[in-house]
């Protein structure tokens, strides 16, 4: 239907801040629609990248009090080096270096391709007790052509100057020794300073390929 067929009243839409413009239920007039609460902020694509960093205020990245919750999505992260850990760290506002204090826990479910090994277990080698290392969310990602790492990471209220900053990740990797491994990582940045930078990297070698997307989740 061409726009010329709209009636005069079709355009009589009451504006609502932040709302999208949509067709109404009869498809012959306009109405407002609720905008999505999950907003894509930034996509970074690795290409033999040593690190991928999301820095508030840089390259269109928003990582401040604009959103109360942020979510990172990892899509087919492929390491240059076989069997290396994928990890992240934060940097507080005005701080130097990705070295915030983290307390975390990690557990995994695993099953190998031959079907000879499966388990659910805590992974002491991946957790931290007020440590400042990069937090591992994948242990040993394979670098065969078809191997990669995927998952998501929630970061809660990183701009708070009152509370610690909780995070929660669920990830899945093609382990270098041909396992399917799912990791559950929870923890907090043990700081009341705002976190406004997050960096991802492998423990060894580059991120050969893959995509990390940052979303903001509105609460209004």
């Amino acid at each position, binding site marked *: *239907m*061409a*726009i010329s067929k709209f009636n005069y009243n079709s355009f009589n839409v009451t504006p609502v801040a932040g709302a*999208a*413009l*949509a*067709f*109404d*239920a*009869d*498809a*012959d007039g*306009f109405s407002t*629609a*609720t*905008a*999505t*609460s*999950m907003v894509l902020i930034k996509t970074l694509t690795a290409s033999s990248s040593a690190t991928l960093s999301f820095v508030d205020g840089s390259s269109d990245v928003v990582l401040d009090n604009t959103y*109360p*919750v942020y979510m990172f999505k990892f899509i087919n992260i492929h390491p240059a080096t076989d069997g290396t850990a994928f990890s992240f760290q934060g940097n507080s506002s005005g701080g130097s270096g990705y070295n915030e204090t983290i*307390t*975390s*826990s*990690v*557990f995994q479910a695993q099953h190998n391709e031959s079907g000879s090994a499966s388990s*659910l*277990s*805590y992974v*002491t080698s991946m*957790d*931290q*007790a*007020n440590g400042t290392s990069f937090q591992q969310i994948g242990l040993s990602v394979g670098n065969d052509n078809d191997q990669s790492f995927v998952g998501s990471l*929630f970061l*809660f*209220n990183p701009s*708070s100057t*009152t*509370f*610690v900053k*909780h*995070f*929660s990740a*669920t990830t899945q990797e093609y382990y270098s020794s041909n396992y399917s491994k799912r990791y*559950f*990582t*929870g*923890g*907090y940045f*043990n700081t*009341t300073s705002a976190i406004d930078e997050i960096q991802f990297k492998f423990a060894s070698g580059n991120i050969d390929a893959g995509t990390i997307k940052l979303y903001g*989740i*509105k*609460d*209004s």
Partner: protein
Amino acid sequence: MAISKLNFNSINVTPSANAAIGFDSGADDLETGSGGGAMKFIKKLTASSSATLSFVDGASSVVLDSTYKEYMFIFNNIHPATNNANFTFNMSIDSGSNYNVEKTTTFFYAYQDEGGTATALQYRTDYDLTGTGFHILAAEIGNGNDECGSGYVHLFNPSSTTFVKHFISRASHYQGSDYMIDNNTAGYGNTTSAVDAVQFKMSSGNIDAGTITLYGIS
């Protein structure tokens, strides 16, 4: 971009009921979209020494009915008035008159203390539930100034009159004795009546501060 820069054909959009209108990938034409995305904000409640926070369908702009097949509650920086109180929730089938839906649930967590002396992955038989009580989402949240809990609950198809009402939750919190705890719980409300209200509260004392936001997932 000013509308005057659009070509004649740019606004020749085929109407589609309830579809949103947006610019196309070239930013030089209009097209219909998916209505702004699949995750829709419904309601945010902010605790301020609150005994309970309740989402009741049809009250205070809350939608908790067949409009969405999945709902998601995100709780952020939940800070209890009482040290090591549990953060809990329950469901109602009578618009919030009673929060007492029969439930069967599981609860396990992983934890690590800040001193690095204690770690575990553990099922808690004392935190799971077969009954009508409030179910624990985060066990023992500290009330130190910087201590709190954050996480989410997915509630599936609460309006169904055929199936039980499944939920899945995960929460990270700062326990009062300086443990990081990763709570993982799931279960179902064992009712075929529609669930039309959900309430959150601490096991003891008020919710001193924090927010809970309800989203509908299209």
